[in-house]
């Protein structure tokens, strides 16, 4: 199979891992638990990529999400010095949000199930890193440069936002 052999066993294990950790992020009262749960969730997603034979994405996932984003979030938690959510965990809006999420799940399930997506070509789509990078730096070089600009803007924005008021040279 082009997407790698589908191992139901591994799939079920990883899917359960991801979903449980995701629920943990949303449901834990202690924000540190949420954060740790998120890190594990990201890790699970990385394994999912590996299972899909997308090694590059899996590595990038671990590098950026597990390595960088998680650390940034932990920093933010420490800086805000609120380890625990006191009082209400959810808004009152949650009683509408839960049915909405369930409804979204139902609708999308219906769509996934009712749509014939199994149209697999004969080519092996398991592109090598070499092929991917040549694609990135030729055909997709313009989005690539744009993304670099977005990163620059985000960096400047983050510095401006995080600087204390009145702290001017």
């Amino acid at each position: 199979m082009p997407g790698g052999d589908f191992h139901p066993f591994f799939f079920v294990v990883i899917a359960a891992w991801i979903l449980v950790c995701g629920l943990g992020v949303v449901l834990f009262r202690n924000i540190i638990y949420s954060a740790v749960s998120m890190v594990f969730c990201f890790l699970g997603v990385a394994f999912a990529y590996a299972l899909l034979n997308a090694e590059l994405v899996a590595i990038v996932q671990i590098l950026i999400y597990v390595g960088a984003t998680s650390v940034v979030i932990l920093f933010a938690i420490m800086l805000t010095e609120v380890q625990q959510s006191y009082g209400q965990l959810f808004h009152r809006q949650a009683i509408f949000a839960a049915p909405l999420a369930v409804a979204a799940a139902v609708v999308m399930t219906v769509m996934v199930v009712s749509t014939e997506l199994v149209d697999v070509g004969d080519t092996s789509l398991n592109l090598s890193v070499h092929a991917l990078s040549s694609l990135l730096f030729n055909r997709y070089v313009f989005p690539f440069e744009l993304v670099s600009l977005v990163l620059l803007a985000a960096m400047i924005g983050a510095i401006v936002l995080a600087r204390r008021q009145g702290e001017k040279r």
Partner: protein
Amino acid sequence: MSPLDWWLLLAMLLFCIGAFGVLARRNTIVVIMSLELMLNAVNIALVAIAQFRAGSQGAGVLFSLFVITLAAAEVTVGLGIVIANYRAKRTVENDHFDEMKG
């Protein structure tokens, strides 16, 4: 049910969990974490479709890479805003921020 369908169902469920977190949690940092879950869900869908379907020629994989990059930027800015807000109000619970009320 083909394997792709299963992957898509997984992505869909993770997306809905994240969406619920975004809508229901009061803590802004958790909201941002939930947002990351949603983005990851989308990425799973992208990579799965790219690996199972012909003709995408790596676009799905590259697109997920772009999403990861942009998500990192988004987290940086979002948390910057959270910290700035925290400095102003000593809280990260987003129902305290209603200055834009009409």
